[in-house]
């Protein structure tokens, strides 16, 4: 009898990333969200090569094409799939360029706020004492006022502009990162590896940023995803109110504001499609963030 024994192959060792990817793929909705987010990101980055028209090149615009409904064809044979605005701009191109501004403002401010907020949160948890009290009091004060109010206050003093909007978003957002980083760091700093690092007499900044920070990342990534969506929403809201980005760099919010006046006369597309683009982006980011929270939560890990 020489029949080969049926020995099962030893289970392959799964890298942490593979496990993460497998768990993330459990939710079809989150995967769909991720696909949409990636698609939107590609559209935003590659806007100049993808958009049928450069909406800011006045030579390409014809005022005679103004306010055409979706599907109309211009004199040059260009089809306006999503219609045109009052300047004769192709809405599809306008939306793709608008996404570019909305995303860069949202992601940019979320990243800057994330760096500042996480650093302050870590320092608060690690230093303790008066420094911690001071930082966390500031966080409490900041979070007790609604984001829109703080942003309004800052823009009222500084005026419009992309840089000012980003500054306002950073000031609105940093506190949430600080709170999250501190609570994560308070748990981690009592672990043995921190003690070990301290025993090695490593410099403080090295313990903080090389040992403590990487282990506090999961909740920060979750907050970061949600905060990007919040930043995009807030930027759109501010631009809609006419306090955000200038007319020369229209984000989705400003496109919606421009179409608002035509909405009452039934020319819905000027506002409607940028709104849909904004909506899809925000909901997709939230879907990804929501599921990331479940996957990265150590309490739920099997």
């Amino acid at each position, binding site marked *: 009898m020489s029949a080969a024994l049926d020995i099962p192959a030893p289970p392959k060792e799964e890298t942490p990333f593979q496990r993460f990817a497998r768990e993330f793929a459990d939710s079809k909705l989150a995967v769909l969200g991720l696909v949409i987010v990636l698609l939107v990101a590609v559209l935003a980055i590659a806007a100049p090569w993808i958009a049928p028209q450069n909406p800011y090149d006045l030579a390409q615009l014809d005022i005679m094409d103004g306010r055409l409904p979706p599907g109309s064809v211009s004199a040059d044979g260009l089809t306006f799939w999503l219609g045109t605005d009052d300047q004769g701009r192709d809405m599809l191109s306008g939306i793709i360029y608008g996404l570019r501004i909305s995303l860069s403002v949202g992601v940019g401010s979320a990243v800057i706020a994330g760096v500042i907020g996480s650093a302050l949160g870590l320092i608060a948890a690690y230093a303790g004492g008066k420094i911690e009290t001071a930082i966390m009091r500031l966080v409490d004060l900041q979070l007790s006022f*609604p984001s829109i109010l703080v942003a309004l206050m800052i823009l*009222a003093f500084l005026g419009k502009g992309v840089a000012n909007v980003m500054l306002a978003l950073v000031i609105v957002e940093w506190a949430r990162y600080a709170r999250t980083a501190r609570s994560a760091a308070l748990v981690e700093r009592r672990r043995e590896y921190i003690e070990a690092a301290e025993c090695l007499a490593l410099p403080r900044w090295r313990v903080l940023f090389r040992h403590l920070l990487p282990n506090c990342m999961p909740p920060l990534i979750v907050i970061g995803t949600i905060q990007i*969506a919040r930043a995009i929403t807030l930027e759109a809201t501010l631009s809609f109110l006419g*306090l955000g980005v200038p007319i020369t760099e229209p984000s989705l919010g400003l496109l*919606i504001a421009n179409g608002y006046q035509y*909405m009452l006369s039934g020319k819905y597309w000027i506002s409607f499609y940028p709104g849909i683009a904004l909506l899809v982006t925000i909901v997709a980011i939230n879907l990804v963030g929501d599921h990331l929270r479940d996957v990265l939560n150590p309490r739920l890990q099997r």
Partner: protein
Amino acid sequence: MTTWLLRRLIQAVFVVLVMTVIVFIGLHVIGDPIDILISPEADQAERARAVAALGLDQPLWKQYGLFLWGGLHGDLGRSFVFNEPALQLIGGRMPATMELAVTAVLLSVVIGIPLGLYAGLNPDSLLGRTTMAGSILGFSLPTFWVGLMLIMVFAVQLGWLPSTGRGETAELFGVQWSFLTRDGLAHMALPALNLSLGNIALVLRLTRAGVRENIHMDYVRFARAKGLSPARVVLVHVMKNILIPVVTIIGLEFGSTIAFSVVTESVFAWPGMGKLIIDSINVLDRPVIVAYLMIIVFLFITINLLVDLLYTVLDPRVRLENRQ
């Protein structure tokens, strides 16, 4: 209790002071106070007189003192546009914002609590799941976009409700109110719904979580064992325990509702103080901006204080903790 109240009051006054410093710095250090406080149409002589009158030639700490003194006496400057004291101007617009915010909060209670109760009691039902999914949208959709869609559907397409303005108003206690007339109520319907969507989602989720948590508690089992009807168990026994966090959140959210009415009022052209502040920012009517910021900060801190007080009254457990 008295010490606690005193400590809270001192804290509140401190926060107000911090905010005045921030607004003052924003006004005098970041921006140029001469441009900000003096009308651009003023000529040289007027300008010099105004600089002296406003004390802009004084050192900074003295200027701050003057600013604070003016604020305490209800004098925060005159609006350039309306040529009226800024505080009086905002006060005149306040009732419109207040009735909108109060209606929105009422709506969130009337819609949010029953839906939350249902979703909590029947978590796997179709309606229960739909409300939960819908509540995520309620959080994440931008208010102004929802407002536009409401206008597009209910005002433009269906033509059921008016989209802008306050409509007919009636007088009560010397103030004009929209909620007293049929026409006013119709005008208020869309903006109030728009403003309340986020709060509806919040109240709904809180109520649902509360039901899910409380329904398995011993006191519920005991009430059932006593033979009480299911309706009484839920509406009296469970409700009492759910309402504490809900009331707190509604109270705290009242402040944000007033702040977010800035957006709703702009979309629906509702003539409240939110619309006023946006218009003022756009024409750089800065005394009005400063006055608005001070009023809203004051409102906020008062609301937070009241909610804290209410909390201790509602929940005896908090009082016990404070005594320790």
